[in-house]
């Protein structure tokens, strides 16, 4: 059992660092993306909703960044909860209320990300098309359904971990 817990601790330590770095880099990356979009669009294939009349004006770039903050905040919430969860696991804290709380918050953030990403894509399309003919387009794809499914799965996992916590508590109080 100790060997398995040590394995959990080792891998969790690594994953904690990975998700911590991702949490820090996301806002930097998204900001850099919007500010460098005028030079990047020639070399990189972007999704359809990012297509616009290049070069973009600074106002368009800043508005695009502002619209992206909603989805960035959501994603950062998810990666932050993952960082906290793996931080607990790296300390050998596996079945506690704090862990289930992380999972529940993560599930909620993933579920919220589905409608937020639809709204953000609509705002970005509107913003990027504002320089020519403004285009109001609401697109819902299987990706959003995927987020809803994933969020539901993580929510169920949080309920199962809550049961596991209760069982461990009973086991700990069995003398």
């Amino acid at each position, binding site marked *: 059992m100790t060997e398995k817990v040590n394995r959990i601790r080792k891998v969790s330590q690594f994953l904690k660092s990975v998700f911590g770095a991702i949490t820090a880099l996301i806002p930097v990356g998204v900001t850099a993306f919007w500010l460098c979009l005028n030079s990047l669009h020639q070399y990189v294939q972007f999704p359809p909703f990012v297509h616009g009349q290049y070069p973009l004006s600074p106002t368009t770039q800043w508005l695009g960044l502002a619209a992206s903050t909603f989805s960035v905040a959501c994603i950062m919430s998810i990666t932050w909860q993952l960082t906290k969860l793996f931080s607990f696991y790296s300390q050998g804290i596996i079945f506690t209320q704090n862990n289930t709380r992380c999972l529940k918050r993560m599930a909620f953030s993933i579920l919220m990300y589905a409608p937020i990403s639809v709204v953000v894509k609509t705002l970005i399309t509107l913003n990027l098309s504002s320089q020519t003919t403004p285009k109001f387009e609401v697109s819902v794809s299987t990706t959003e359904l995927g987020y809803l499914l994933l969020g539901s799965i993580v929510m169920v996992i949080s309920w199962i971990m809550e049961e596991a916590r209760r069982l461990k508590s*009973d086991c700990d*109080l*069995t*003398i």
Partner: protein
Amino acid sequence: MPIHIELDVMLAKRKMRLKSLSKKVGITEQNLSVLKNGKAKAIRFSTLALLCEHLDCEPGDILKYTREE
């Protein structure tokens, strides 16, 4: 909880300390303290047997049932 643990009563009768009982039984003092303070949710038969052996008593001397009204 209608089941009460009267471990402290038996310890007093046998003039034994919790620390020495924990060493004899092979359970940590902390766990025995959880049992003594009524915070335990369950007790293993093996633990109960060891307690009865070292306190020279019956399970009924340690476990008391009080009907809740």
